């Protein structure tokens, strides 16, 4: 329900002009923030003030604002997406904070994600991983009837659990190693358990993990920090599945 109390917050926001430029924190005050506002709406307000003051507004990625497009990407107080369980920044609401709080806002940090500007990073490497094999080579048209391949509910559910990944990159941002293994494993697992994906399973896991390495992501050392950071709660069991698929592919 609506709260009448508004809050004043101190924001430490990472500002950086481009990938090669040095960055630093700037301090801003967010005044009269309503607890019913989303985090991004709070930043909108700060930006409105900056624009009016003739200053450069804070650049941040966002689009659908309903937690599904995966565009928003901020590390808030050291936690990707702010640390609320299974929540993207755009779904994070200000009632999570208290009046007088100090909030640190940083971009995703990983070698594979160069900073574009301020809180905006280039996540093209995730696309590269999918392009390496995150698909079935189904041609448009000329496929079998949907019910020709039976997929029992538990398998379909397992695939769906993996397929929920929104590709935001929080797993990379949260990983102490800057690894995209959870992201990769979600796609590998989804397609590995479905009959339509099995034909290419071996090639897929090799190509995708190869791309992960080439893109400059780190290696997975089972911290499981990715699962904690994931706004969709993708489970690290999929990394185990990926490992299993990988072992199957080389022996």
């Amino acid at each position, binding site marked *: 329900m609506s709260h009448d109390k508004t809050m004043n917050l101190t924001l430490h926001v990472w500002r950086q002009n481009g990938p090669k430029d040095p960055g630093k924190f700037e301090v801003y005050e967010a005044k009269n923030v309503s607890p019913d506002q989303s985090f991004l709406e709070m930043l909108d307000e700060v930006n409105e003030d900056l624009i009016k003051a003739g200053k450069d507004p804070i650049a941040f990625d966002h689009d659908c604002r309903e937690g599904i497009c995966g565009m928003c990407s901020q590390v808030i107080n050291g936690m990707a997406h702010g640390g609320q369980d299974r929540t993207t920044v755009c779904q994070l609401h200000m009632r999570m904070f208290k009046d007088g709080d100090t909030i640190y806002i940083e971009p995703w940090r990983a070698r594979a994600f160069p900073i574009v500007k301020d809180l905006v990073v280039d996540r093209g490497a995730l696309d590269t991983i999918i392009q390496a094999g995150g698909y079935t080579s189904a041609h*448009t048209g000329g496929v079998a009837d949907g019910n020709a391949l039976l997929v029992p509910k538990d398998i379909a559910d397992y695939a769906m659990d993996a397929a929920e990944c929104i590709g935001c990159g929080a797993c990379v941002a949260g990983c102490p190693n800057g690894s995209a293994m959870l992201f990769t494993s979600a796609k590998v697992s989804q397609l590995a358990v479905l009959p339509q994906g099995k034909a290419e399973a071996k090639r897929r896991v090799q190509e995708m993990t190869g791309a992960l390495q080439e893109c400059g992501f780190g290696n997975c050392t089972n911290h499981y920090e990715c699962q904690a950071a994931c706004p969709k709660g993708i489970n690290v069991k999929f990394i185990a599945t990926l490992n299993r698929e990988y072992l199957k592919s080389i022996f």
Partner: protein
Amino acid sequence: MILDGKCPTGPIEKTWDKHRFDMKLVNPANKRKYKILVVGTGLAGGAAAASLGELGYNVEAFCYQDSPRRAHSIAAQGGINAAKNYPNDGDSIYRLFYDTIKGGDFRAREADVWRLAQVSNNIIDQCVAQGVPFARDYAGYLDNRSFGGAQVSRTFYARGQTGQQLLLGAYSALARQIKAGTVKMFNRTEMLDLIVVDGEAKGITVRDMVTGEIRSHVGDAVVLCTGGYVNVFYLSTNAMGCSVTAAWKAHRKGAFFANPCYTQIHPTCIPQHGDKQSKLTLMSESLRNDGRCWAPKNKGDKRAPGEIPEEERDYYLERKYPSFGNLAPRDIASRAAKEQCDDDRGVGPGGRGVYLDFAASIKRLGEDTIRERYGNLFEMYEKITDENAYKVPMRIYPAPHYSMGGLWVDYNCESNVPGLFVLGEANFSVHGANRLGASALMQGLADGYFVIPYTIANYLAKTAPGKVKADNPECKKSVDDVNNNLKKLMSINGKKTVSEFHRELGRIMWENVGMARSEQSCKEALKKIPALREEFWKNVKVSGSGAQFNQDLENAGRVADFLEFGELLTRDALYRNESCGGHFRVEHQMPDGEAKRDDENFCHAAAWEFKGVNAEPELHIEPLKFENVHLAIRSYK
């Protein structure tokens, strides 16, 4: 001018098959010589780029997001229709066709809708082959559910994230083609102009949103898949970046804009919480399968919902539409909610809301079943409102959601500008005046996978590849125009922010041309919009520079286009002196408040031709013929 939709004639069941045979083909060896520019990578664009690339065309695809996977198709929750008739409950291609024509309130072309219904089955097969994890039963068969506006279970779904899964399917097909080198992808690139050479669409001018570079891309055909325009209302369920810009630029270059007044207001959205809100969030329509809509019977009843006894509740949808009840189509459900609120019986902040109550279903099925069906939606609701909908009823209110209108296209999805094709929500073709649930995904994928691959060949076969080169003077002119426009925006340096203008435009549009429209309100808006536009070009403040990553500038350009487009939408709403589907003119209603069509005078698509910013657009008409589904009063009682 009377427009020709170029629909094939003869028995409707044969139209698409016959047409496919009649169309010309491009020799496989020649395909790579043709370059096709696909703008937008949602369901329509992603599917089109992937399919065209696979056929061997040389494709360049563009999206404004950082990855094609983020297009707003991803947000669709409920499902996708197909006439598979797996549940054996009486569905057929004909019934899907019939339902869609009727649901669209008889304002769509029969042939287009038939084709959509026909290829709907192929879409499901295609998506399954891609690995889309549709819901299945324990034996492994595809599961279906019912959806608003239909009496059969024909909706395929993947939890509450069907759009996401279908988009990721198309995205994966696109990724495969990018890897294969047939599609070149341009992320963070926004189309800002259409290049027309000798009357044909031959390229686009884009802005690289990272470097600010303005450059043109030439090709042999342009395919616009750039979505809808309901962000003209400022608050909507669309993504923040959704805009009319690409379609509007094409319109300014000659493409007709058809039926812009057909906007869909979705009944089940989370009500607005305050004036700083940036967008509205949709709750899947599937909630109406188990939720009951009600409002207090007494005016101004401020009691908590639990304190209002059963006999003082008005289950208005069940009362008004006994046979469809809470599953009445979207336009009807939305208007009914508005009626309750206008009658001072709304609930929540500002009285702009009604209840969607699950208590009865929870009692009947148990909380666990409800949790299993809608758990993610209840969770989302709680995140946003801080209320537990298992305990207290949800509050919902209609919000702008989808645009049925769009660029005018013929049966081939080709606009009146040869070489310019428009797919998905960006065109006007199949939903008439109202779209039924679970059919937007169907249309996007139908156009992208199964229509454009055939129809574009028919155009390309008649044109020599590479006719227009990058050094064409039209390209330079277009780049200069775009540059000048951006410079102008940057140079105003006024006092009001872009968002302030957008909000103001949204208020004008929502109040005057929103869920209910009248001659007077439209005329009011037609006075206010140009005035606001004039103020915008004098007093807007855009920060930063054009030669860098600049989100403020991006928004400014989009709002500038909305300020022109809003006027056209209003003009169309004023012109269409009838009520139909999502377009409700208060002057034209049945005694019980239902929309009253005027088939005598308005059984046509109204396509507008751009004549200049402050000039009146020219109207062209495409008459609609109903030979299979007979014009009738749409009744959901």
